[in-house]
């Protein structure tokens, strides 16, 4: 008679509030799940969780989905929902349960009446370029509804978020896809948007282009390179404008763009900062923008062009043949 081997078990707790600035704590708390080497019954204990912002939530959902899909979080793993009613309601409103249990046959646990997701955009999962496009459009639409921006602002956001979501599809090689969430913070008149993947990270992606072999050796250098226009791991296919355009849009808005990939974390905008941090599996891109300041894509494109001119040196618009047609400009 063979003795049945007991399934390993661990308990992982998220306590108190998890804001964008405390994402490193979220990472540390969830690290045991990321480090699993064998199928394990995981109890994710959120009893003492009081708040979780979009970036931390998207990361949490990515970790759990990845753990479940890889089989490391074995059957019998469970989530203990927050004791705090607002926190539990918030997770429901953010649709975290649907995303976490998307492939489950059983109904999600702890059913409550779902309220309208006022002031926020639910957590979304996407695993294709078209899915990313859909999520980007939904995010920008939700933000427009919330802050009563004009259609041009919504279009600008849509363009930026589409580019960021595309990065997941074209560069990250993330098996579990990408995760996005957004929330408006009325007290600071800001919106936080996060796009997260647990893929190979920016440095590994950039290493695919020999031109950036040097930058790819270091996570901070890789992030700073990726933010420059024309830098891409796949020049034959991509143009490398996405992060650069987002950066210029946010700079004009006095907002922040935070990119955390591997052991590098760089904040662009309001206050530039870069530091070496605990290793993030994949990439987190978080945008924090002000709802009461301009978000002008025309100027952003102009600045992007100026940046390209600086990089190219000899770049001259006169060299570019005009489009054939009856342009109205």
């Amino acid at each position, binding site marked *: 008679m063979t003795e049945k081997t007991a399934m390993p078990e661990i308990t992982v707790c998220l306590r108190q509030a998890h804001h964008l600035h405390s994402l490193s704590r979220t990472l540390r708390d969830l690290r045991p799940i990321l480090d699993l080497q064998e199928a394990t019954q995981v109890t994710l204990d959120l009893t003492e969780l009081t708040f979780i912002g979009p970036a931390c939530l998207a990361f949490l959902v990515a970790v759990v989905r990845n753990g479940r899909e890889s089989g490391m979080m074995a059957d019998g793993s469970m989530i203990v929902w927050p004791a705090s009613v607002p926190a539990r309601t918030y997770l429901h409103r953010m649709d975290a349960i649907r995303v976490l249990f998307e492939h489950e046959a059983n109904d999600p646990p702890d059913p409550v009446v779902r309220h309208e997701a006022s002031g926020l955009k639910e957590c979304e999962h996407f695993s294709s370029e078209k899915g990313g496009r859909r999520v980007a459009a939904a995010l920008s639409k939700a933000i427009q509804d919330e802050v009563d921006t004009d259609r041009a602002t919504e279009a600008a956001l849509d363009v930026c978020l589409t580019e960021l979501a*595309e990065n997941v599809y074209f560069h990250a090689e993330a098996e579990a896809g990408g995760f996005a969430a957004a929330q408006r913070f009325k007290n600071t008149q800001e919106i936080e948007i996060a796009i997260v993947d647990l893929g190979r990270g920016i440095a590994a992606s950039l290493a695919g282009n020999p031109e950036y072999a040097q930058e790819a050796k270091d996570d901070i250098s890789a992030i700073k390179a990726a933010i420059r226009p024309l830098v891409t791991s796949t020049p034959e296919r991509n143009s490398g404008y996405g992060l650069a355009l987002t950066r210029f849009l946010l700079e004009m808005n006095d907002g922040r763009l935070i990119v955390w990939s591997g052991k590098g974390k760089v904040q662009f905008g309001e206050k530039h900062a870069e530091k070496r941090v605990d290793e993030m599996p994949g990439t987190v891109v978080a945008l924090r923008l002000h709802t009461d300041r301009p978000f002008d894509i025309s100027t952003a494109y102009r600045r992007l062009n100026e940046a390209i001119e600086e990089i190219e040196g000899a770049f001259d618009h006169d060299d*570019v043949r005009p489009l054939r047609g009856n342009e109205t400009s």
Partner: protein
Amino acid sequence: MTTSAPCEAMKLAKEHGEVLGGRVLGQEIRAKVVRLVQAGEVVTLDLDGVLAVSPSFADEVFGKLPAEVGDDAIVFSNVSAQIQEVADMARAGRPGNGSH
């Protein structure tokens, strides 16, 4: 001698919305235009009502497409100043389209 015939304009805002984003959408439109051009047509892409295009979309439609089929095979109409700027950027970044 073959002559190219103009075909009905593809109204991009009507078909795909006011914001044209995503490389895959750009690829789809590029493939459709290539097929029409190969069938001997001159294709008009009408951008009336388009508010913004993403850089990746622009790369496919303004950058790669003219390089692939030739400038004479496509006509871009109702291009706003802002989209023109993105288009120029995309064209500048692709071989066979002028600069670098």
